[in-house]
């Protein structure tokens, strides 16, 4: 077992290590640090929107920079690296290999992220997380914009290196006795999401370079005055980032696949259906990118094609929900912290999906597009589903990493507050969108409906913020002073702990 904190090592022994659990630990610490940084920006945004007019932020530019860096941070510096943390820790163990396939490459992929994060934070760009030209190419202030572009470029390369490593590790290094069909669903989730990364990232990588040269004035790829086309950027961008949302969600679903059966004390309802849904999802994730672009003036035929492509992605997500519910059905459920976070995440996943289906219907999208509805929609995924699954897994791996137990009561309070807060913020934002409030605004018209709903959302955000402070305390306190965990069965489930529970970590 990996008792990181019980056998203290000097910090550089971890930093310069290439061992998969050390890299996993580095990813874990870094991603959670960025979670708190990005979350602090969200609280600033919500405080500003509590009332119309200027509240805590003096000018709109600062506000614009805050939501840009907030989104960029939480997607690229929290969700993705958190998944890598879990993958690095557990994929080699699950496929029974001593390490990742390319340990040095693994360390390189990790160490690319902190400088990229520094570029993004020190630059503090304002052009939103999708950096659309011509604004991003001719108006967005440098050097912030350029630093963001370089930061994202580095993150893209790091993602691709990580993906290659996962694919090779799973396909080539798994134990010969372990057929691919029996590989646990968590490892399958890394295999499929890594395949998506390899296919999806290149188009945005190209777009970034073109954006940079446009900014330098040497090209006009996206500048109509020079024969370019700003819409081309949007296609390149969404060809990467619609599939990328599945890169985020698939590992989180994989994490829930570890937790749900264990805390239902029942095997997974259907392993093969989970695998099938992962593979299906990664294929259809490429059929829907332009559902973000209905309002750019696409033809009726184009819109129809992308609507059908979008709807086609829903059955695979629905299959996962079914698999979870069928696993829990008739099980002896034990609602300790990891289970609560997982079940809450599944409930929010379902509501988010229903909203997604609604706004892929093209006439409806002309009501919701670029309104607060969209903000509510994708946050039910990124926060409600992906962050919830990640936090569930964090609690789940806590004894494994530290050898100690977190405080269960605090974990439960953390969940309840976050769940209530998430519903208050993001369900309300759907309604705000229906009332026509645009997203990415520093101020809004003082309609009573707008004010009330913004206040509900802001209070919800503060509740989430408070619960996360409690989490931080629980993590730090329990890692050093918590009760020692019963490593065979930390939650008293009456079974064995990790899959495969006998795994000894060769490094320690």
């Amino acid at each position, binding site marked *: 077992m990996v008792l990181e904190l019980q056998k203290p090592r000097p910090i550089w022994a971890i930093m310069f290590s290439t061992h998969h659990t050390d890299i996993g630990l580095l990813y874990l610490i870094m991603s959670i640090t960025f979670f708190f940084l990005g979350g602090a920006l969200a609280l600033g945004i919500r405080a500003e929107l509590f009332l119309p007019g200027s509240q805590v932020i003096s000018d*709109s*530019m600062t506000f*614009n920079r805050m939501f840009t860096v907030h989104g960029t941070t939480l997607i690229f510096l929290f969700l993705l690296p958190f998944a890598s943390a879990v993958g690095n820790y557990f994929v080699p163990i699950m496929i029974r290999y001593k390490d990742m396939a390319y340990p040095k490459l693994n360390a390189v992929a990790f160490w690319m992220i902190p400088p990229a994060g520094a570029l993004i934070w020190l630059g503090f760009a*304002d*052009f*939103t997380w999708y950096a*659309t030209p*011509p*604004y991003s190419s*001719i*108006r*967005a202030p440098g050097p912030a914009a350029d630093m963001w572009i370089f930061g994202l470029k580095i993150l893209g390369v790091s993602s691709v290196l990580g993906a290659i490593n996962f694919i090779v590790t799973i396909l080539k290094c798994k134990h010969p006795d372990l057929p691919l069909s029996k590989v646990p669903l968590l490892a399958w989730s890394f295999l499929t999401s890594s395949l998506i990364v390899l296919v999806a990232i290149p188009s945005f990588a190209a777009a970034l370079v073109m954006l940079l040269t446009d900014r330098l004035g040497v090209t006009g790829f996206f500048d*109509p*005055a020079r024969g370019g*086309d*700003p*819409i081309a950027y949007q296609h390149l961008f969404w060809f990467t980032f619609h599939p990328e949302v599945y890169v985020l969600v698939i590992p989180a679903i994989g994490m829930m696949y570890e937790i749900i059966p264990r805390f239902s004390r029942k095997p997974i309802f*259907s*392993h*093969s*259906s989970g695998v*099938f849904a992962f593979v299906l999802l990664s294929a259809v994730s490429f059929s829907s990118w332009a559902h973000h672009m209905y*309002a*750019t*003036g696409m033809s*009726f035929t184009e*819109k*129809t094609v992308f*609507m059908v492509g979008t*709807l*086609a992605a*829903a*059955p695979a997500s*629905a*299959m996962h929900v*079914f*698999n979870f519910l*069928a696993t829990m059905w008739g099980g002896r459920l034990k609602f300790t912290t990891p289970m609560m976070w997982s079940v809450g995440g599944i409930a929010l996943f379902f509501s988010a999906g229903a909203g997604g*289906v*609604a706004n*892929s*219907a*093209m*006439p*409806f999208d*002309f*009501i919701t*597009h*670029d*309104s607060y509805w969209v903000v509510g929609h994708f946050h039910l995924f990124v926060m409600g589903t992906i962050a919830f699954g990640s936090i569930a897994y964090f609690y789940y791996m806590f004894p494994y990493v530290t050898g100690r137990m977190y405080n269960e009561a605090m974990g439960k309070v953390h969940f309840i507050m976050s769940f209530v807060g998430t519903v208050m913020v993001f369900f309300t934002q759907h309604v705000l969108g229906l*009332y*026509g409030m*645009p*997203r*990415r*605004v*520093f*101020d*809004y*018209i003082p309609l009573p409906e707008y004010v009330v709903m913004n206040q509900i959302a802001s209070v919800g955000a503060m509740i989430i913020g408070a619960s996360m402070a409690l989490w931080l305390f629980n993590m730090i306190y329990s890692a050093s002073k918590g009760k020692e965990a019963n490593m065979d069965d930390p939650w008293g489930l009456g079974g064995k702990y990790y899959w495969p529970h006998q795994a000894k970590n060769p490094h320690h």
Partner: protein
Amino acid sequence: MVVSGHSNWPEWIYVGVVIALLAYVGAEAWNVERIVEHAPAEAEVIKVIGQQWFWTFERADGTKEVGELHVKKGHPYKFEITAKDVNHAFNIHDYVILQDAIVGRTNAAWFAPDKAGEYTIQCREYCGLLHYNMRATLYVEE
């Protein structure tokens, strides 16, 4: 799909129901969109130009309005929407008009206002410093 050991028919029924629902949503959306897309031939054309951070409206006869737009109730209008500097999005939420205003392109949308009154026109695509305040007023007159 090979199923490990037990019957999987509830899942197939469930997937079937989901697909039926999706097909219904898709068909309905296709049908509505098909009907609302085409502007009537007699619609009066209004050229809409977005730039940082205001809206200009131009009619065929050369008259121009900035920051406000006066139209007649019951009369159809077709907007031809474009932008001068960066992308914007032309939005009259109360009449479900939403089209991006893109440099170098013209996008169309149409409506026939059925209630007199004042409505908000706003920008719904991030366009920089004063994006939040890029509004105009629509006056629908009897």
